[in-house]
């Protein structure tokens, strides 16, 4: 009975979303305050209904109600409670419910904290959120109903896909969706502004916190997904340029561009049209990602099921929303007035460069992702565009951006002194090279290119600190005064420094792993020792073990350096009983920022086992850098500027409940 109520709540939420889609817009057109006042009520009502529906689905998973097809297909009475909860979105229907839940959450947040937006803008923004919600609720109800029953109820479930039985599933999708779907608010603001034909610096100030919050969560979600794939799949890679990864990376790139262009718009009233376009494009890329992942055009760990009607439905949503928004943009963009003037060498100029490089790079990733599909549907020819393509194009295109990043914050608005900024960054460049050469020496050589790459990474880090150093006036005024000045800096300046520093840390990880990683594939017998990264790894033997819902063969290794033991690492091959599916559990040991990574292969007839041993120096930096970027995002969100002035204060607060929801 309660299950039917879940579906009922979902259908009611559709009705509410349709009301939200229509009445507030009519109100805004006619200047009818009563009609506009429907918007926040409907948005909150829709959120309550979707939450009820989502909660009922989660309850069914928690109590293992196998009369629900979705639970039967993706759960098992024996799996730990955590996986019962995360299993809710470990399948197509449930993940669409999570998508919808987060979309409704963002609508509710706009309703709650957007009280000081101009009434018509708020009504229009919420109505656009209502359109998106209606489309996705309709999609769920018509093609992906998670509340379908099976009669008679089977006694036991078919188990959650073993690869997904990990804490990563509890964290990665919610964070990713908070980012992905968070950009819907920017989209709604852009469409609402185009409908009103009015857009100014205040608009940018309202949009920026939402963009920043979405970007921060997306950063965390992508990094989490990357680390999860790294330790779970047992391939030792952290990024595969897989279309599904690209699907989340493209909104991130566009969102990064949006953050920076909104800054120019807020401060200088320039780049208005461009910022509106970027807001539309960013969410369009989120929608495209949803289409790629959910429609079954790709096969990957993320494509849970492929049903052609779903693909067509999402494609229709994609075409209507992107096409509609871009048409509106084409009709209205000319009526928006162009903004302030600036010299090519200026803070604005640097941010334009940032936008140019980020959008062009996004385009290359898009081409590389879609080209094989387009070619196949046109000519039937099947090709694969993999890492070599992306490393060559994306890697080279990003290079000038990385070089320019430390310059940005040092340049003045309107007109700046490039030579002066270069002089102030001289220390960063020199420090970068010195540290890089020292590391190169301790890693016993390696490609010369590695020195350049690491110098770039340290230049980014020191460059980010240089900005804070100069703003605080360290070296010029007494130390305590400088510290006080540093503490008094706008939070956004500190957030920027964190984010740029984090970027440097990530670049360091990427360069060091590419240049210094060692990989060894060999057959080992018990007692045999192999050397990697200066450590000696001894294979002790295999034991058979039993988990709650799997059996495993566990290989134990002891690690030692120059005679002294450093403990054991174990890696195992599991077979999950319900699906009879094998998986590899990698053995990972972290030393500082570097990691040892062991994956087991097949047992040989003579008792040996194939083992793959990696030494991955500085690899932790890749995700640690993303974490620092995320911290930078949160610091920036707490900026006073985003609080000062009524509407922006509310917008800032809005990010806080979103954070709580993620925990």
């Amino acid at each position: 009975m309660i299950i039917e109520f879940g579906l009922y709540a979902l259908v009611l939420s559709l009705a509410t979303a349709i009301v939200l889609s229509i009445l507030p817009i009519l109100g805004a057109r006619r200047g009818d305050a009563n009609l506009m006042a429907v918007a926040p009520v409907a948005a909150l009502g829709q959120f309550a209904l979707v939450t009820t529906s989502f909660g009922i689905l989660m309850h069914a998973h928690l109590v293992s109600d196998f009369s629900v097809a979705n639970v039967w297909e993706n759960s098992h009475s024996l799996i730990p409670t955590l996986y019962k909860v995360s299993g809710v979105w470990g399948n197509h229907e449930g993940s669409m419910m999570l998508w919808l839940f987060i979309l409704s959450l963002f609508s509710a947040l706009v309703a709650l904290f957007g009280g000081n937006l101009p009434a018509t803008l708020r009504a229009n923004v919420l109505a656009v959120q209502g359109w998106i919600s209606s489309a996705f609720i309709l999609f769920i109800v018509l093609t992906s109903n998670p509340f379908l029953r099976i009669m008679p109820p089977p006694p036991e479930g078919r188990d959650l896909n073993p690869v997904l039985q990990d804490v990563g599933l509890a964290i990665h999708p919610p964070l990713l969706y908070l980012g992905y779907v968070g950009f819907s608010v920017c989209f709604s603001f852009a469409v609402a502004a185009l409908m009103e034909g009015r857009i100014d610096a205040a608009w940018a100030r309202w949009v920026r916190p939402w963009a920043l919050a979405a970007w921060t969560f997306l950063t965390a979600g992508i990094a989490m997904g990357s680390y999860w794939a790294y330790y779970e799949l047992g391939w030792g890679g952290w990024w595969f340029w897989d279309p599904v990864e690209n699907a989340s990376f493209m909104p991130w790139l566009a969102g990064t561009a949006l953050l920076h262009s909104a800054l120019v718009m807020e401060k200088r009233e320039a780049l208005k049209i461009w910022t509106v376009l970027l807001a539309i494009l960013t969410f369009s890329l989120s929608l495209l990602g949803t289409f790629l992942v959910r429609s079954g055009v790709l096969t990957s760990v993320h494509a849970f099921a492929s049903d052609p009607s779903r693909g067509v439905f999402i494609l229709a949503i994609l075409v209507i929303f992107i096409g509609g928004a871009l048409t509106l943009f084409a009709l209205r963009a000319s009526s928006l007035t162009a903004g302030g003037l600036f010299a090519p060498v200026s803070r604005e100029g640097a941010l334009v460069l940032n936008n140019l490089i980020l959008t062009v790079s996004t385009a290359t990733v898009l081409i590389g992702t879609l080209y094989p599909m387009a070619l196949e549907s046109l000519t039937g020819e099947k090709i694969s565009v993999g890492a070599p393509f992306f490393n060559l194009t994306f890697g080279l295109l990003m290079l000038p951006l990385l070089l320019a990043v430390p310059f940005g914050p040092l340049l003045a608005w309107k007109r700046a002194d490039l030579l002066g900024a270069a002089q102030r960054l001289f220390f960063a460049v020199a420090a970068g090279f010195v540290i890089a050469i020292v590391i190169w020496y301790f890693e016993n050589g390696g490609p010369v290119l590695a020195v350049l790459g690491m110098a770039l990474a340290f230049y980014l880090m020191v460059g980010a600190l240089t900005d804070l150093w100069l703003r605080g006036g360290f070296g010029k005024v007494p130390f305590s005064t400088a510290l006080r000045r540093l503490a008094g800096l706008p939070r956004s300046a500190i957030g920027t420094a964190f984010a740029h520093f984090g970027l440097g840390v990530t670049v360091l990880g990427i360069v060091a792993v590419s240049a210094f990683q060692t990989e060894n594939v060999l057959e080992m017998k018990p007692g045999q020792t192999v050397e990697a990264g200066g450590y000696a790894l001894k294979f002790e033997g295999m034991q058979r073990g039993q988990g709650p819902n799997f059996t495993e063969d566990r290989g134990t290794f002891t690690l030692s350096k120059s005679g002294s033991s450093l403990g054991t690492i174990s890696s195992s091959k599991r077979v999950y009983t319900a699906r009879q599916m094998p998986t590899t559990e990698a053995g990972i040991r972290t030393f500082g920022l570097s990691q040892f990574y062991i994956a087991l292969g097949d047992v040989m007839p003579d008792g040996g086992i194939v083992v793959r041993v990696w030494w991955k120096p500085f690899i932790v930096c890749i995700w640690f850098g993303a974490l620092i970027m995320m911290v930078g995002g949160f610091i920036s969100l707490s900026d006073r500027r985003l609080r000062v002035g009524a509407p922006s204060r509310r917008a800032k607060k809005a990010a806080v409940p979103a954070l709580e929801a993620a925990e």
Partner: protein
Amino acid sequence: MTGTRMTRKQKRLAIISGGVGFIIVAVLLVMFAFSQSVSYFYVPGDLQKADVKPGTRIRLGGLVKTGSWVRGEGTTSTFEVTDTISTVKVTYTGILPDLFREGQGVVAEGSFVAGNPVFVADTVLAKHDETYMPKDVADRLKAQGVQLSGKETVK
């Protein structure tokens, strides 16, 4: 900027020409990368028709022929990939994916060495799903009239 200040037109021109220049570089780079690093997908039956030069990176898909998987010295394995019509021998050094099984779908990436009909793979893919058949493989096999049911076995 030092010296004389730029006019509005000059500023705009400088920014636009810089942007267009960068886009042209990007387009050339993408075209170059497509010509260099894209690998084509074949099933064994295509190889006789298509003239694949030794050293050209391709993806070879099909089913692992039952009874063909031999574990050689150390970490090298050989197996045969078939589309039920023709068969290609593949050698691979490394750890095969967990779901690599005889009779099931597989995609091997690598190239041929001159004067040798054996395909040298450096990557072997099989998805993490028990009913999986790589989509490329399934499509091509269907096109060749092979009946697929989800759980594939080929004798």
